[in-house]
């Protein structure tokens, strides 16, 4: 049976408590900060899409220059606080920490990053100053990580920014998508407020491009436009029974949970989740944490090909979710319009496909799982219609850009999930910076405040060992 209010308030609080709790004390942060070797041209920094100068900010925690530390982080990544909670660090900075090569625990970079930035947000440190207005105006679609990151850089350079956001709150998927045990609504709100506190950024909520805002109008009214609208709902499964009551979209399910509060979100007793990406893991674990008694994840391939990290998989396993490897949904069964089961094909791995992963091939075998809810999490699809209607060059709906976020349309730039099809927050933040750089260049304004993402000047190369500049994000 699908129902809400399965647990008590206390149970919800326990189930959705912060999965990566912060340092309790300054001393605790110091123990870890002091362990940092202060690597040169640090591997962790290279693996951060926004190239935060990690050794520097950690050293600044060590010297108790917390303001300096927060400035170092935010200069490269204005979502530095949020990223400290949501980044899959095991495959980024922490995964590259040199301690891994000594079989020692990596430095808890995310936790330290959180330590410095949360204080900045809590105490509202005004770390950035906006330059006097240049009189130039830029419109941004979407107040998600890409849009806000772009807006912040532009505002620092004295651009007047207006953001059009279809929801009533900012933060994008940070506020509406990411698992509730990683970030709270209050945190997301504070983070957005902190970013906007620089001034020069006006957010018009409940305004949707394609509905009550048109790209053409924006192009004529503003000096440039940045598109950061992310991607839409999950793709359809195109199998029998998909219309039954109890078949839900993961993005929509999580949106309810993040927007409305835990007790009001209905969840089944026995739930199947289809897919094994970040969204699937989040849907599965949160269904369990809302009180579902059994959650089964259904995935077409094997452990070797899974798109989520082992760390995320472990969260789901520890929550008691079951994984059905090599199984693909074939049909959703129902009675009186409601889901009763999911028929899966047993798959086997065939030849490697274009992505060099071995494609799953159907066998004759099937099995049925008894469920009353099916959550679809097989990847979000871009806003194809919106992109096509506006004549944007695209790749199956993903906006195509050249250097620094330029699209084929005059004055129009884009970045984040709407371009890459759905990656991480940290990638969207970098895309926002890249787009801002492109816009500033286009407007003829020197981008003095845009932190070089990979500070090649600190690599004092000698003849013969120049780093390959093409590999560096500049």
């Amino acid at each position: 049976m699908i129902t809400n209010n399965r647990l008590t308030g206390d149970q919800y609080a326990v189930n959705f408590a912060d999965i990566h709790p912060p340092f309790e004390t300054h001393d605790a942060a110091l123990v870890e900060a002091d362990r940092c070797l202060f690597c040169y041209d640090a591997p962790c920094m290279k693996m951060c899409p926004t190239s935060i100068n990690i050794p520097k900010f950690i050293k600044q925690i060590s010297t108790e220059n917390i303001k300096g530390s927060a400035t170092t982080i935010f200069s490269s990544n204005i979502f530095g606080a949020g990223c400290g909670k949501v980044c899959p660090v095991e495959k980024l900075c922490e995964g590259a920490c040199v301690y891994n090569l000594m079989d020692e625990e990596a430095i808890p970079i995310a936790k330290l990053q959180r330590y410095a930035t949360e204080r900045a947000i809590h105490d509202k440190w005004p770390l950035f100053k906006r330059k006097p207005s240049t009189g130039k105006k830029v419109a941004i679609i979407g107040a998600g990580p890409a849009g806000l990151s772009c807006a912040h850089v532009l505002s620092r350079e004295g651009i007047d920014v207006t953001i059009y956001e279809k929801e009533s709150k900012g933060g994008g998927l940070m506020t509406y998508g990411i698992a509730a045990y990683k970030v709270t609504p209050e945190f997301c709100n504070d983070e957005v407020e902190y970013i906007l506190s620089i001034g020069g950024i006006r957010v018009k909520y409940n305004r949707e491009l394609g509905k009550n805002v048109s790209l053409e109008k924006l192009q004529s009214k503003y000096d440039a436009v940045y598109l950061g609208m992310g991607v839409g709902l999950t793709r359809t499964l195109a199998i029998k029974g998909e219309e039954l009551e109890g078949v839900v979209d993961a993005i929509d399910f999580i949106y309810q949970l993040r927007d409305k509060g835990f007790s009001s979100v209905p969840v089944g007793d026995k739930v199947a989740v289809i897919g094994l990406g970040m969204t699937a893991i989040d849907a599965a674990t949160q269904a369990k944490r809302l009180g579902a008694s059994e959650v089964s994840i259904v995935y077409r391939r094997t452990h070797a090909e899974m798109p989520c990290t082992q760390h995320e998989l472990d969260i789901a396993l520890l929550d008691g979710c079951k994984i059905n490897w090599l199984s693909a949904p074939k049909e959703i069964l129902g009675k009186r319009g409601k889901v009763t089961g999911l028929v899966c094909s047993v798959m086997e791995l065939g030849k490697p496909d274009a992505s060099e992963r071995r494609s799953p091939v159907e066998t004759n075998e099937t099995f049925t799982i008894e469920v009353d809810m099916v959550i679809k999490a097989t990847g979000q699809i871009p806003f194809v219609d919106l992109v096509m209607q506006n004549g944007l060059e695209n790749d199956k709906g993903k906006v195509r850009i050249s250097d620094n976020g330029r699209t084929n349309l005059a004055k129009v730039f884009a970045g984040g999930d709407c371009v890459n099809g759905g990656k991480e927050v940290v990638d969207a933040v970098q895309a926002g910076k890249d787009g801002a750089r492109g816009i500033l260049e286009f407007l003829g304004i020197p981008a003095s405040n845009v932190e070089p993402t990979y500070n090649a000047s600190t690599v004092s190369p000698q003849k013969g060992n120049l780093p390959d500049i093409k590999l560096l994000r500049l």
Partner: protein
Amino acid sequence: MSLATNFLGIHSPNPYWLASAPPTDKKINVLRALEAGWGGIVWKTLGSQVKNVSSRYSAVNFNGTRVMGFNNIELISDRPLDINLKEIREVLKEFPDRAMIVSLMADNDRKSWHELIKKVEDTGAHGLELNFGCPHGMTERGMGAAVGQDPEIARMVVEWVMEAATIPVITKLTPNVHSVVPAGKAVVEAGTNALSLINTIQSVTGIDLDTFVPNPYVAGKSVFGGYCGPAVKPIALKFLATISQNPVTRKVPVSGIGGISTWKDAVEFMLLGSTSVQVCTAAMKHGFRIIEDLCDGMRNWMEEKGFETTTDFIGKSVPTLTQWEDLDINYHHIANINQDKCIHCGLCYIACEDASHQSIALEYGKPYNKYTIKEEECVGCNLCQLICPVTNCITMVEHRVAPEYLNWKDYQQLGLPLNDH
């Protein structure tokens, strides 16, 4: 194999004595120390009556390690002399097999010294240590370092002492001088039976950035204190070496002090000529229980090296400390990075690049750069090896310039090229 130590006929089961300081200032802790296994103790300095201030210690922390250096503005014993003497007697009765040395600092006249020595000898103590080193509080009254800093005053006081003393006398030197040799020589010539060093080094450990008052904080003010602990070990070893090298001072046994925290530190002091060693800060930081590993570690090391007694290695390193102009200029070694051990932290690279001879090549990689030594550029300075966080990842490999020994004097005479790097 044995750690047993004979210092001028004063026997102790091991060379570890607790230095004259708070751990040795009364019977309760001294008994606990001896129970724990310490070889002997130097009782907290006795002398005229004093009064301490309340706040008296401060420290230097480094990169997360607390009390890397320790500082105090404490005076000599602030307990009544009679109680100290009574307790010394009682301890001697319970632990007759341990070294009992009593540290003294009498008022600066012959009579006071003679009286104090008489009283202390009456307890049955095995030896006396003259505190010519305390750098604060007592110097203002013409005692402590004020004596130790002036070789002639030190000579005079030791002469007075030797007139009265019938048990071995150890003179404890102050490091607050450019060289400990002049005072050392003077007191040896005056008849002291042994030397000990170092006492604490004058210091300011830090300043509170909110109150602007240096620490330790005493009602809005502070004073220079005496610095000790791990941070002072290299300075103590240097002073010790000069005493072991000098033809006059090397005739008497030495008790080495200053920053000893581990058995390795102790072995180093002994290799440079100490017969016994004294410990203060390490015991103040960790308690008496460290004696177990101090002994155990030394014993295992001796076994490995085939030493039967500590005298087999005492002073063994002294001859290897030479003059700069006698060093072999033809000795050359070059760093080598073991790529299997390298963790790609880049610390060797940036140190060499910014502060040495730009002898490390960086091959860019994401995320891991590859670092290799440019052998023709490497001068062999050791900087990269010192900085590398992985043991034995960077090693220095010998590449002699020529097989024969060539020192600086010969080098000049041969007119060989200078400033070639």
